[in-house]
């Protein structure tokens, strides 16, 4: 393989890596907003908890390729490209964030919650000063799982034209070019490891002694 081909491959990989990161952070960001908000609501309204968890569970069971396929014929939210990919990535990322938010908040020591309420905290103060800070490590662990999983699934989203490092992998598979497959797979793996490592560091700082 000559230098020009390698240079082109590296340039493509760089641009596609940025696109990959962009898709991951948009999807995981929206999933975090939705998952944490619905999770908080679910701790206050049992039916919300039941239905939202059931929905996120079902979404998780659909194979990613099938999910991308299902979305193609759906007007407005579906089709080909980034929009449909981001939507399905959000659905995939939802479960760990939602579940961990609910688990984190409901696992707060009842004595701590009770005494905070008995001291005269409003529901909002309880959430802001007690439940969210104490649940933060658990919620954060959910976001970490979702982020790392999304980095992997985003590679498959290239099948519906979302872009990202999956483009190189698909192109490599089609032309039986190992170099091209690696140019897509290695940065994706490195990105997943780097994000996981950074999140682990942040998580460690958040740990609260019981």
């Amino acid at each position, binding site marked *: 393989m000559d230098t020009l081909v390698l240079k082109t491959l590296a340039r493509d990989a760089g641009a596609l890596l940025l696109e990959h990161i962009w898709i991951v952070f948009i999807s995981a960001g929206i999933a975090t907003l939705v998952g944490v908000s619905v999770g908080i609501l679910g701790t206050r309204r049992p039916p919300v908890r039941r239905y939202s968890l059931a929905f996120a569970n079902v979404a998780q069971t659909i194979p990613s390729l099938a999910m991308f396929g299902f979305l193609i014929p759906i007007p407005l939210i579906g089709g080909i490209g980034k929009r449909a990919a981001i939507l399905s990535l959000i659905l995939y990322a939802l479960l760990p964030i939602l579940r961990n938010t609910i688990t984190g908040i409901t696992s707060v020591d009842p004595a*701590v919650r*009770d005494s905070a309420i*008995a001291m005269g905290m*409003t529901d909002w103060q309880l959430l802001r000063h*007690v439940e969210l800070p104490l649940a933060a490590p658990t919620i954060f662990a959910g976001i970490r799982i979702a982020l790392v999983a999304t980095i992997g699934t985003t590679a498959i989203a290239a099948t519906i034209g979302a872009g990202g490092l999956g483009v190189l992998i698909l192109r490599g598979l089609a032309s039986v070019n190992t170099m091209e497959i690696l140019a897509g797979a290695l940065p994706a793996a490195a990105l997943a490891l780097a994000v996981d490592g950074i999140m682990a560091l942040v998580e460690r700082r958040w740990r609260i*002694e019981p």
Partner: protein
Amino acid sequence: MIFLSFRDVECRRNGRIILDHFSFDLHDGETLVLLGRSGSGKTTTLRLILRLLNYDNGEIFFEGRDLRSWNPIALRRRVGYVIQDVGLLPHWTVEQNIALVPKLHGWPEDKTRWRVRELLEQVGLPYEDFAQRMPHHLSGGQRQRIGVARALAGNPALLLFDEPFGALDPLTRLDMQQQFLALREQYRVPAIFVTHDVGEALKLGTRIAVLENGQMEFMASRDEFWNATTPIAQAFLKTLAVTGDVA
């Protein structure tokens, strides 16, 4: 003057009667001890006052007003509550924990800090050594002292103690009981103290009420309690002979 009044209060949970036609008055400055076995309705009584639970029948008056007419948040901020598990916020320092109610009341920072310092000294923990500690760096006794300080911080009109010293070793417990008496002299706030230890009841109560199956079995002043004739009150007094605990 009657500060708090229960009139024929009935409370049911899952079809079971927890409090049954329960009545008593709490007067200004007195410490009423609710003495009873586990499940007799002592804790429920405290939780009703804080509106953490609702009652089904009867009436409760707090400072002369129907309890149901009180805003629950405003009501809770007028009451200091101490529980056995303490329930300190584990991610807050000792100072932040004690300052909780003053902050909810919107006290200025200087006044709050002064109050925290004063309370820490009153419960025997020097401000310089303890204010910035986290709860997990405290012993059980120290945590309970912080719990008492926190309950007193907002100048409450009523204090509720739910078996606060039940999990402490005997020496720390004795020390905490002495401290309770000293603080009572100082603050003269009406209090309800829940315990299943008759020795503690006789040490700390100005009046003692015995609960059994959600009903008031017997109520008398501390001195009259020795002459109790009802079976549960007598059974509690007999435990003193076994443990050798003398009030």
